[in-house]
């Protein structure tokens, strides 16, 4: 039977672990709220740029449209932008995205395509390095520290644009964890190049019931050429924000579980501790009584 001193030490160590996990849970909850606010604040820009792009893309002649919109006409080389977290202790957050990416890479390679990887976040780098080191083209660590910024997203977008203009890839897809709730994050692929105009009910501006025909200054193609890289940054920024919110949610859930597990453990250890103590007292009593009887 474990001795009392050892048990006491275990209990106090589990208790301090529990204190840390519950503090981390609080921090994650606060950050999650912030992340949600940020995602909310970023929405107007993203919506408007998308709407502008939608009306521009509809009007642009197919021949003169920039390659970023229509694609290069091939799909031989795929660039995957993978958004992961910089820090661990967030449950299956990074694991699930890496699993999805790995499956996709193997699938693409089986089809004879070339795959290139651009990774955001330290955890993704660590998890993919062993298998796919030679596919890495660029790695961004601690880009979203302490919070994701548009500047950071723009850096990534710049790199993607430069690579695209140099003809280094044909299709670009972002993989990120989309925030659904604190409990669930969904791995979402989002194709950036060629740009897929979002389908669905587009709110078209109307003038007296008829559809508005915009004038463009300068020409549509020129605006489009300037707008597309901006849109790229916006989409990457959005992915980073979603991923950030997801990370905080995942960490909150993971830490909540850890806190609960620590609680269970403390309970069962306390029971063992009390039983052991009781047994020891009983033993001592028996010794005293049988000693007294022997006299």
């Amino acid at each position, binding site marked *: 039977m474990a001795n009392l001193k050892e048990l006491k030490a275990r209990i106090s160590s589990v208790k301090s672990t529990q204190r840390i996990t519950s503090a981390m849970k609080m921090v994650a909850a606060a950050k999650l709220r912030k992340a949600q606010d940020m995602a909310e604040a970023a929405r107007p*820009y993203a919506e408007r740029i998308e709407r*502008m792009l939608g009306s521009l893309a509809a009007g642009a002649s197919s021949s003169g449209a920039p390659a970023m919109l229509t694609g290069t006409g091939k799909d031989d080389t795929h660039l995957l932008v993978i958004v992961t977290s910089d820090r661990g202790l967030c449950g299956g957050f990074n694991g699930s995205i890496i699993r999805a990416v790995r499956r996709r890479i193997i699938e693409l390679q089986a089809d004879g395509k070339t795959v290139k990887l651009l990774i955001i976040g330290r955890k993704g780098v660590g998890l993919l390095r062993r298998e796919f080191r030679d596919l890495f083209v660029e790695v961004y660590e601690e880009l979203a520290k302490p919070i994701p910024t548009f500047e950071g997203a723009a850096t990534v977008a710049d790199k993607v644009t430069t690579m695209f203009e140099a003809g280094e890839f044909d299709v670009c897809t972002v993989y990120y964890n989309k925030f659904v709730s604190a409990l669930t994050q969904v791995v979402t692929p989002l194709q950036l190049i060629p740009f897929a105009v979002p389908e669905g009910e587009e709110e078209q501006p109307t003038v007296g019931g008829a559809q508005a025909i915009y004038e463009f200054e300068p020409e549509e193609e020129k605006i489009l050429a300037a707008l597309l890289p901006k849109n790229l940054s916006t989409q990457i920024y959005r992915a980073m924000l979603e991923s950030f919110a997801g990370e905080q949610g995942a960490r909150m859930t993971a830490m909540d579980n850890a806190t609960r597990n620590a609680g269970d453990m403390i309970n069962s250890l306390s029971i063992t501790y009390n039983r052991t103590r009781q047994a020891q007292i009983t033993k001592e009593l028996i010794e005293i009584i049988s000693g007294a009887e022997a006299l």
Partner: protein
Amino acid sequence: MAEKVAFDLVSPEKLLLSEEVEMVVLPGVEGDIGVLPGHAPVITQIRMGTICVFENGQVVKRLFVDGGFAEVMPERCTVLAEQATSLEDIETSAVEQHIKDLRDELSLADSAHERAALETAIAVENGKLEAVNHPVY
């Protein structure tokens, strides 16, 4: 005029300004555009410069933007800009100091990419100074 234009200034990180105004003047790449209620729908690119907000025929607000896009509709005007600051909030000395710092960094920068980024930043800061020292309208 009783009618107003709903003017929105949006940056990627948040909605900076949203109000009803009489007129806005935008620094378009092909010349300034004055937007009054009932303007024809236009999508335009904006150069670095100052957006002026008019009320009762007077400029009431000047905002510096580092470029962007604007969508004009008869009853609203939306500007998308990455950086926007009210001219009143720009302190010349701070900007000058910033330019000096950036220049120092530029002399140390070795990659062409880094240099280009710094040069753009310096151009933006210079644009701020220009906007403060020579206000339009």
